[in-house]
């Protein structure tokens, strides 16, 4: 018997559920559906899913509450789904422990990609064993060297400053996942860093000019407007070509 990853979909719209579960089932996932928060809570406890797809706009309880409750006892990966105009919902969810987000409407490719990334990150903790062994993170021509504290593009050291390297190191640690601006600022400059938003942006602008061939069409670091930054994962660079 083949063991498949179990995905719990928490979504109230029946048609969207149909779409999501057909995509998942046809890609060898075991999909379960919950339409309300209470159904979801019961299913999480009884079926122990490997990943949860959570719609933030549920009828009976706020999706955020489910997330908060879940995070008090589990680091189970959660991908939240929300409507376009609610960036603050997404940011709040990410800051509360959601692993990634999807904006409605989304296509199959994007859906599957986010699920794969989220599952991979729980499987292998911080990056893969390869990275743990060599201390290097590689994507395309980019290499982040955690031992020597430098970043190479096509073999050449791009001479990042101390702050710039710390930002890249953080993005590399969570490669493929979106990190909110607040999260990065807090990780790098502490919880009372407050209004270091401009400093982060200017550092990113400099990083971009150093590592990207065309800063406006980046290959490695992507901006999610209103939310944060995401470093490309190994296969992502290949597929955008």
């Amino acid at each position: 018997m083949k063991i498949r990853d179990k995905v719990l979909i928490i979504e109230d719209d029946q048609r969207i559920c149909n779409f999501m579960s057909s995509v998942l089932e046809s890609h060898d996932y075991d999909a379960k559906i919950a339409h309300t928060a209470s159904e979801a809570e019961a299913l999480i406890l009884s079926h122990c899913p490997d990943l949860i797809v959570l719609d933030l706009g549920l009828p009976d309880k706020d999706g955020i509450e489910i997330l908060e409750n879940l995070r008090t006892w589990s680091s189970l990966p959660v991908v939240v789904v929300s409507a376009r105009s609610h960036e603050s919902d997404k940011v709040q969810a990410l800051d509360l422990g959601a692993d990634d987000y999807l904006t409605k409407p989304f296509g199959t490719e994007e859906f599957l990609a986010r699920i794969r990334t989220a599952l991979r990150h729980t499987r292998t903790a911080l990056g893969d064993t390869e990275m743990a062994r060599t201390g290097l993170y590689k994507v395309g021509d980019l290499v982040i060297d955690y031992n020597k504290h430098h970043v190479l593009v096509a073999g050449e050291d791009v001479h990042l400053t101390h702050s710039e390297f710390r930002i890249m190191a953080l993005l590399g640690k969570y490669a493929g996942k979106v990190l909110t601006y607040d999260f990065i600022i807090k990780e790098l400059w502490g919880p009372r860093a407050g209004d270091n938003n401009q400093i982060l942006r200017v550092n990113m602008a400099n990083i971009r000019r150093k590592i990207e061939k065309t800063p406006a069409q980046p290959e490695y670091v992507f901006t999610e407007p209103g939310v944060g930054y995401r470093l490309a994962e190994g296969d992502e660079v290949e597929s955008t070509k």
Partner: protein
Amino acid sequence: MNNSDNKYKINWDDAFVNFAFTTGILIAATVFSTVIHKENNGGSTAAIMIFILAVLIIARKTSGYKWGIIASFTGVIVVNFIFTYPFMQLNFSLTGYPLIFITMLLVSVITSATSTQIKLQERVHIESERAQVRANLLRAISHDIRTPLTSIIGSTSVLLDENCQLDEDQKRQLLQDVQDDGQWLIRVTENILSITRIDGDNQIVKTDELAEELIEAAIRKFSKRHPDSVPIEVNLPDQPLIVPMDVMLVEQVLLNLMENALIHGTGLSKIVLSLESQDGMAVFSVMDNGACMPDHMFPTLFEGTIRSDKSTNKGSKRCMGIGLAVCRTIVNAHGGTISAYNLEDREGVVFTFTIPMKEMETFNENQR
């Protein structure tokens, strides 16, 4: 709470402004009356006239009734004290006093009432103009929704019709059409949502964002939606530009402009996005090297009333009626301006909009 976006405009609802104005006019009236009083030697008629005029001016310009009435009282006292015999003494027993006082008071009240009514009429006028714009937009939206829906219902009814024998390619094409229509509807929805983000008073929540990141995100989104679009060139300045804005709204503007270029730039081979800094404004431009826009379209381009221009309509180039109107609403709400023009050599069309920037502080000392 009042929102005055032009810092040089005088805010007549501010108590301090009203106070200063009232005091200023009264002092001017006193000075003027003193001069004339010395010339005329004795009569208080001139002073009375000047102060009635002062009260009228104050009532006309200040807001509400109180400043005019205060001015009336003050005027009466000043005229009595300084300009009426016995001079430098208050004496209200002289005949004619009640008349002067009542006249000033009436002038003040009637003028204030007239001013208030004028302001009210102006507000009503603005409201009705806004209602008209809203009605136009709603009409455009309804058109933009009905068109793809008609196509969806049509395509799916053919697919569901048992009598229609379709081969795999035909079925696939119809399904692709349904998906494309769905995408179109999403874009219309996003435009509508953008409008709702801007409340009635054009209040938006701005955060400091890097203009180049916005451009990057917009291009990525655009390329995903139009994988077979013409190549997009980008010109960015060396210096990173930080622009306070609602990033989702300005992204919407860029997307609408790029889509517009792709759909209407007949024969285009590239789209060029440029960003530059000019006089404290971030200037974004979207240029396509397709056919020029007929000159008669420019005046109403951003009104939301444009349908496809029949004269250049080669085939079914679907037009989003509200796209450009939404662009203008968003740009204006940010305090910027949007415009379009044909290139001088008639080799394309440029849409350009500005967004006010912030002063960039130097960060060198913080980059450890």
